[in-house]
């Protein structure tokens, strides 16, 4: 598994929007949450899962 720098950055961006939105919901944060935070976290999760899949297939576990 490679270093998870990109995934961490994406998660930080996603959470930097999600947490304020949960505590102080308003239309602008809702927009950022829907169109920025969710894709960021989604991509981060997908990248990690892809790395896990590659790791497992390279070791003939999958």
């Amino acid at each position, binding site marked *: 598994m490679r270093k*998870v720098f990109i995934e*961490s950055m994406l*998660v930080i961006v996603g*959470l930097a929007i*999600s947490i304020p939105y*949960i*505590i102080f919901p308003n239309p602008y944060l809702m927009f950022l949450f829907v169109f920025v*935070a969710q894709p960021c976290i989604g991509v981060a999760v997908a990248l990690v899962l892809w790395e896990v899949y590659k790791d497992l297939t390279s070791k003939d576990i999958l």
Partner: protein
Amino acid sequence: METILDVLAIFVLIVEVILLYQLRANRHELSAKVRSMVLFGIIVFPLLALLLGNYHVFVSSKESTTCQSCHVMSPMANDMMFDSHSQTLAARHYQNGWIAEHECYSCHADYGFQGTMKAKLDGYRHLMRYVTKTYTEPIRYRGEFNSMNCYGCHQGSRTFEAVDEHAPVVENLMGDDPSISCLNCHGRAHPEPSKRTPGSKEYKWLSDPKVKEVVNAQEVKDYINTLAASAEQSK
């Protein structure tokens, strides 16, 4: 519920900061500890934050105050909540306490983030247009209001069934091609577009509730309920 969400969000934030900091310090070795930190720091807790955020998008947005938080909805919300002389259907329902909660959503159940996929896409489009300010006031309802939303609450009520004229209307509404709207007889649901046009006489206070010297919508509702209760007692 909101407090629990806030506490959970802060908990997620604190745990996430610790996890990411630890992950940064230990990222050079792929130990079991690092793997579990990746699992929780990049997958589990961010997904929990998304879950909490989506609670607001899909559940908290049923609250009328959420609709009110968009400037463009102010004329509708302020007319409904604060104008004691308003005869619009929304104001009469709200101020008489005919709808216990989720006043906007009760009538617009098929609209915005809560309804069908098309309605959800409409909700996203509205959000996009509001934030990018690519809309013009007065806003207008695209399409036709579904009068079956009214029937959902009024169906079976004695006062509704007692009016003979409602029978053919219900029959029409349940048909394949309904041609009657409840609004035909019962008047407008919200202020007419001329009042919601910037620059008009009514627009100023319709878009600014402070003009009415009312701080909180719940206070107005409580006050109206108190009046209704005292009127009942005096009978």
